[in-house]
C-alpha cells in the first residue's frame, strides 16, 4: 500500500527546536517514577549521581522515555538510559548496548514506558536521527510497582551498584 506521505527534504522541526551546542559528551536519561515502588530506583540513583558527574555529562530525568528525549541527545554524544525493568531478579542489574536492544524481540520490558517498548522507541529515534544512537541501557530488576510503594529492600540495596554501573558506562562511552 502506498501511503500519502512522501519523504521530505525539510528536517523535522524538533531537530531545530531541540538542537543544542554539542557540549554534552554523554547524556544520562533517568526513567521511572519515584512514587511507584521499584520504578523509582533510577530516580534514587540519580540523586547519588548528581554530584559525581563531569561537566560534559548531562543528566535528565525523563520519566517515561519518549522518542523526543532521544532526539534531544546532541549529535555525537553517547547516551546512558537508566530504567527499572521486569523480567529480572529484584536488584539485578543488566547493561545492554542500545543497538543490540533494537534487534531484540524478547528483551527487557521497561516499567515506565507506557505505549511503546524500548526497542521501538530507540529504533524510531534512530530512524529519525538518521544514525543509530551510541549508548547503553542499564536496567535494574524490580518486583513491585504499586503507587505509593517504596523500593524493595533488595532494590534499595542495589542502588550503589546501579550508580557504579552508570558511572562505568559513562566512562566507557567517553573513551
Amino acid at each position, binding site marked *: 500500500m502506498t*501511503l500519502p*506521505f512522501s519523504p521530505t527534504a525539510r528536517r523535522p522541526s524538533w531537530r531545530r527546536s531541540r538542537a543544542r551546542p554539542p557540549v554534552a559528551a554523554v547524556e544520562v536519561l533517568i526513567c521511572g517514577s519515584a512514587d511507584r515502588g521499584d520504578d523509582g530506583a533510577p530516580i534514587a540513583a540519580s540523586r547519588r549521581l548528581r554530584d559525581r558527574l563531569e561537566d560534559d555529562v548531562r543528566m535528565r530525568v525523563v520519566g*517515561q522515555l519518549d*522518542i523526543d528525549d532521544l532526539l534531544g541527545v546532541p549529535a555525537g554524544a553517547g547516551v546512558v538510559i537508566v530504567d527499572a525493568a521486569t523480567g529480572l531478579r529484584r536488584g539485578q542489574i543488566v547493561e545492554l548496548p542500545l543497538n543490540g536492544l533494537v534487534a531484540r524481540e524478547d528483551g527487557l520490558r521497561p516499567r515506565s514506558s507506557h*505505549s511503546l517498548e524500548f526497542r*521501538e522507541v530507540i*529504533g524510531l529515534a534512530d530512524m*529519525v536521527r538518521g544514525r543509530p544512537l551510541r549508548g547503553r541501557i542499564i536496567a535494574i530488576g524490580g518486583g513491585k510497582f504499586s503507587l505509593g510503594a517504596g523500593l524493595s529492600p533488595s532494590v534499595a540495596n542495589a542502588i550503589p551498584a546501579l550508580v557504579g554501573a552508570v558511572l562505568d558506562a559513562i566512562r566507557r562511552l567517553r573513551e
Partner: protein
Amino acid sequence: MHDTDTIADTTGDLEVDVAGLTRVEGEGSLRLRVRDGVVEEARLEIFEAPRYFEQLVVGRTPDEVIDIVARICGICPVAYQMTAVHAFEHALGIEIDPAVRALRRLLYCGEWIESHALHIYLLHLPDFLGYPSALDMATDHRAAVEAGLELKKAGNRIVELIGGRAIHPVSVRVGGFSRSFRRTDIVALRASLEAALATALRTVDLVASLDPPEFARAGRLVALRHPDEYPMNEGRIVSTDGLDLAPTEWRSAFHEEQVPWSHALQARGRDGRPYLLGPSSRITLSARQLHPDALAALTRTGLADEIAVNPYRSIVARAVETVDAVAEALAIVDAYRPSDAPRTAWEPRAARAAWATEAPRGLIFHAYELDERGHVTHAQIVPPTSQNQAAIEADLAAFAPRVLGLPRPEQTLRIEQLIRSYDPCISCATHFLDLRVEDLS
C-alpha cells in the same frame, strides 16, 4: 512478555488466554474461550485501576488533588485534571475567566492530538498494514511514521507549554492556572499546528482508505454533547438511546460493579447494559459540532454511519477528531487574549463536587466530597477504560466466532486489532500480545 499465552483452535473451538498484559497503571490479561462456535467466556481482565487514587486524595485540598490525579495516566493526565478542576469549580461556584476556559480547551486539544496521533500511527496503523510494530512499519513507510511523530509532537508542545511539562502537567489550579500566559507564548504554537493540520487531514484520507474487518456491534454509545462546540470540558451526557443528563449526574444512569476477574470496577448502565465511550461515540453523537474542517473531512470519508457500528472504524473517528483538535487549537491560538489574573480567587468550604469531561478514550467522571476546610473526604474516579471494559468484552464475544476458520496469525491479529480499536489504557500491552497457538485436539 506474558506468563502464559495460549490459543487453542479446533474447528469450532478457540481458546485465547493471555496472562500478564502490562501497562503503567496496572496489569491485565485477556481470556477468550469459544466452544463449538459458542462463546463461553470473554474477559478483559484489568488487575489494577485508579482505586488507590481515590484514597490518596482523601484529606487533600482541591489543588493538591489536581496534581495527584494527573499521575493516574501518562497518556491522558489532562483528562483527569480537567475533570477534577471542573468538578471543584462547579461545586464551589467559581467563575473562570474566558481566557482560562480557552486555554483549558487548548490544553485538552494538545492531549487529544498527542494521544490520537500515537494511537493511529504507532499502535493501530501497523495492524491494518500488516506489520507487527510501528518500527517494522517504518522500514517501508518511514515518511508516514515521521509525519505521525510530528503530529504527536504538535500536541506535546501544547501540553508542555500550558501544562508546564509534557507528562503529568503541573499548572492547572482551581480558578485558573498557576501562571499567566503571554500572547506571544501561545502564538508560538501556530507554526507547528499549521503543519499538523495538513498532516491530520491527510491522515483522515489514509485511514479512511484502510480495509477493516466487517463487524457491526449493536451497543449503546455514550458521550458528552455541547450545543456549540465539540465536547471536551463541558456538555451533557447523552446516548444513542435518548439519555440526556447533566455532567454531574453520571451516577443516576450508571454504576460501577465488582467482577470476579478484575480488580478494576466495571461500569454499566443502571439497567445492567454495557455502553461504549470514545471517538466513535462522540462522532456519532456530536458530528454537527465538529470544526468545519473536521466535519468536511468526515463527510468526505462517507463513513459516519459505519463509524457508529464498526469498532475497527474507530481509527477514522480518531483521525477526524485529530483534525478537529488541531483546527480548534489554531482557532484558540489566534483568538487568545491573556486574562488580567491567572486565576480567580476562591474560598474553601464544604461541598459535593462532580463533573464529566471527554478524555481521548471517552467520558471520564469524577465526584468528590469536601469538608468545611475544603479537604476531600470522599472521591470517586471513573476512567473511560473501566467503563468500556464491559462493551469490549461483549464485542469480543460477538466477534470471536468470526475468526474460527482463519489461519492462526490472522486470528491473533484480528482479536488484537479489535481490542486496540478501543484504545484502552492497556493498549501498550495489547499491542504486543505475542500469542502462541496450540491445537488441543
